[in-house]
């Protein structure tokens, strides 16, 4: 998770930790896993698929009160941790990100 330690990526790191928790990813996330790497689908090194995406969507809604629905293409939102973070950040507005 080294690449998530950089300044400005605190929210991305928070999201990744949440994803690791709810999807029960047992293997440690590799240091070279980047916020721009595929999150869901066959190219995901985390091994996440569309069923995991449903759980992530529900968790994001519960934790950040941000619903992933309608015209936003979920495939685009779930492409990487960075795109997910960007979407949640945009929907939350300028308020503080972390509790």
């Amino acid at each position: 998770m080294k690449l998530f330690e950089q300044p400005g990526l605190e929210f991305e790191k928070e999201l990744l930790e949440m994803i690791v928790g709810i999807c029960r990813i047992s293997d440690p996330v590799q240091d070279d896993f980047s916020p721009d790497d595929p999150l869901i689908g066959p190219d995901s090194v985390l091994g996440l698929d569309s069923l995991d995406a449903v759980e992530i969507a529900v968790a994001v809604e519960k934790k950040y009160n941000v619903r992933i629905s309608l015209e936003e293409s979920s495939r685009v939102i779930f492409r990487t941790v960075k795109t997910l973070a960007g979407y949640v950040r945009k929907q939350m507005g300028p308020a503080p990100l972390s509790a």
Partner: protein
Amino acid sequence: MTDTAKTDFTHRISAHCESGSTSSLLFHYGVKASEALVFGIGSGVFFGYFPFIKMSGSPLITYRTFPGRLMKNAAGRLGVGVKCVKFKNPEKGMEALDDMLRRGIPVCLQTAVYWLPYFPPAFRIHFDAHFIIAYGMSGNGYIISDPVMDGPVTCTREDLIRARFSKGTFSPKGKMFRFMGAPGHIDIAAAVVKGIKEACFVMLKLPVPIMGARGIRFFANSLKNWPEKHGNRKTLLYLGNVIRLQEEFGTGGGGFRFMYAAFLQEAAAILKDDRLLDLSKRMTVIGDRWREFAASSARICKDRASEKDNFNLLSEILLDCAEKEHGLFRDLSETVR
């Protein structure tokens, strides 16, 4: 084929292929109807559980009306005629398409996702009711606006033939939809009312137990028995497909319920009726409930279920969805009496 032809069509991304294609073609003809508005006017919201029909090896569950109906309903109610042509002969089907494109007319095609080469292999499911718009030709390819793609894509003639004439549950049979142009005046309020009335009818009044709110109840009661009836492996396969149909395939989430909530919000402004705003909020709550069902199902499929996640809980959530949807459509029908 070496023709080059292109219409001035603008690609638009959307959540769902049929409502998105319809909305894009309506925009092309100057009718600015959002995807959610098209979905509502087209009476797209629905539920049907057809255990005797199999799609991708699983019982068919649908959260939307039958393929093609939404488009015809929505465009027709907005005064835009839609001409649908079917073809038995692929060559004739492609000739008709080429003719339209040479004349600068974009058309909507029903296709099978599996044969569309621009889809990543992992997304090439056996679904034969995917709607795309062909709006140009270039060399041996067609210029395609697929509403679920980020931008325009191309597809070779051979691949498009396979996609248009695939055999399956909803075999496309080469179906091509052409919009006939918009009228000078559109009574959008009347279109919204018609859309709502039909949605209420199909969700409340169809005389079969497997469709509408009764269908949700029927599915809830059937689902409880799946593990005993089908065994663990098949049950998990079926359940996974239920979730994918509900959350993944361009439904906008919650089995189109979030999209219908967005429609009701727009309808409130068009009909100047605040009751529809309340109903929109209620529909969003129902969408969230469907999503809870999906999340709990996903945990079961992924073998990380909590103590609470089991088939009785899934059934209870569905029964709650059925009751809430029954109440919502009953109250919605009151607004358009």
